[in-house]
């Protein structure tokens, strides 16, 4: 499966071959082993970077959260397109990364957006956060309006990704 980590914005292709006390997996094609011991409280004791550390993983509604000691990570599964061919990096459905208020919607339905273009500004915890396009796309649908409160994971905008390698014929 393909996972994207939110802090580092890195993507991983992970195939788990074997569970148990030694997890065997292929990470971006490279075989890796993880020694782990299940603890009474549902956490694991793993060997990582030459030392033993507690770890915990939980599946949430829209993501998978993992702690390695004090480090926290959030992974989002990425969908692969129909033919199995990789799409451009654009996540086709933009969801709210946290619950909050939609302050501004900066695009219109049917409009074209470029990589990095601001799409929507949300307010959460007294702070503004602007979500931007991860790749070239057409705005298929805007699911929210300004001033609306949304839950984490709520669909904000649906995009139709454009293949960045092809010239955009619809200009």
């Amino acid at each position, binding site marked *: 499966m393909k996972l994207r980590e939110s802090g580092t914005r890195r993507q991983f292709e992970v195939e788990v*071959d074997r569970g148990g*006390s030694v997890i065997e997996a292929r990470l971006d094609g490279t075989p890796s082993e993880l020694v782990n011991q299940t603890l009474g409280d549902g956490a694991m004791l793993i060997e990582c970077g030459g030392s033993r550390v507690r770890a915990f993983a939980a599946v949430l509604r829209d993501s998978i959260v993992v702690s390695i000691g004090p480090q926290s990570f959030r992974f989002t599964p990425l969908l692969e397109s129909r033919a199995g061919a990789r799409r451009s990096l654009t996540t086709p459905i933009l969801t709210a990364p946290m619950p909050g208020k939609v302050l501004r919607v900066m695009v219109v339905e049917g409009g074209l957006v470029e990589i990095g273009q601001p799409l929507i500004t949300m307010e959460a915890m007294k702070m503004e956060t602007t979500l931007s396009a991860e790749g070239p796309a057409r705005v298929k649908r805007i699911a929210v309006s300004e001033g609306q409160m949304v839950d984490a994971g709520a669909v904000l905008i649906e995009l139709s990704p454009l293949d960045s390698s092809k010239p955009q014929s619809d200009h």
Partner: protein
Amino acid sequence: MSARKIKKLLVANRGEIALRIIRTARVMGLQTVAVFSAADAAMPHVTAADEARPIGPPEALLSYLNAAAIIEAALASGADAIHPGYGFLSESPAFAAAVEEAGLTFVGPSAAALSAAGDKVGARQLARRVGVPIVAGIETADIASARSFAAANGYPIMIKAAAGGGGRGIRVVVAEGALASALEAAAREAQAAFNDGRLFIEKYLARPRHVEVQVLGDAHGRVIAMGERECSIQRRHQKIIEESPSPGVTPALRARMIEAAVGLAAAVGYQNAGTVEFLVEGEGFYFLEINARLQVEHPITELRFDCDLVALQLRLAQGEPLTAPSSPRGHAIECRIYAEDAGNDFRPAAGPVAYLQLPAGPGIRVDTFLTPGIEISSYYDGLLAKLIAYGYDREEARRRTVSALGEFMLTGVLHTASFLRDVVASERFARGDLSTGFVSDFLPAWSPPEESIKAAAVLAAVAAQAGPAGTAPRARPAAEDSRGRSPWERLGPLNFGSRR
């Protein structure tokens, strides 16, 4: 201030500070009343108090900032005093006045002192009168005055909100071209945040330290100081690591700063606990502002002076006189763990507390409201926990901090514990080479170790396959199935990866 014995205290706040105040009140034999918004009904501060009253919907403006609802809750519950904590209504002169008008005791300074401290322009003028140094600046912010100030003093300059706080309404302008738009944006932000668009301008100090002095005043005109706190490690103009004493303040500078802080507090007839903030460059210091409330970072002062500042606040509110503080000892460091994605420019995070392990050990104190199963929502400030370490000297406090942050584990919400650990463990922090530019120097080269990211990716994939996202009710430990076995056992020797 109505000076009489408090019997029942309403705590007009939430999160770790509400819990912390309730604990001291309980020790002092007071009855406690919690208030809560609709989002907080099951929060630990609500269950910790003797009684609890709803004050409105989740939005802070309609609940924790709803002065009328809070005073009504106090009267209905028979409370005789209100402690505002920090943030929310703690520095509102109108709230303090309304509390006193309702016949209740406000645990904090008088409305007049709050007004004097809250108006940063007025406070600057006061400092000038009392002879406390201030950063070069002007108290008007029209474009023409701003241009001529910048021409005389050079860029960069800093635009600030007269009613400011929490880093809002602040803009740094590096060149003339950006001046007009920065003035407009700062005024807009200040208007939205404080309902007061007035601005002032200061010369921008590039690498200052941020050092503050704890002061306390009683109803009999006495003002004392309880040492200083170094608060230079900040992001978005908000502190994330504080320590006491400051590693960069000499005894001579400390004495001058304490004299200035006490003089300023006395000049406004300050009662109760407050903090006078300064910027420090070399042996020079400049008055920044008065924070007329209990500070987030008050525990480091408590550990060094072996006192309970909330208990002192309650005694001062009852009209009791101040006594001389004990001599400070040792060193204390506080790290604020926020619900934020440090790798993504400290973007706010939210989610359930699916797994929690809090640090402990000699010299370690954790002030938090975290409890397994609660939901961290985006309605309020993202402070999750404060880790406070005390040591015989700075190095012991620093090593205890690094070790304890390594024990902190919270799954479900992204948080800053490992970032803080890496800062405190860094050679530069160990040297005490601190400035307000520390985080922006440190962050670009910071990332979690490669092995951790990879291990996390593998565990995420295992968890996803064991319990597909979407079927989970809300938060579910991936490590257990319905029969309590871990997926690692359940999966055993199976091959379950999707094969191609």
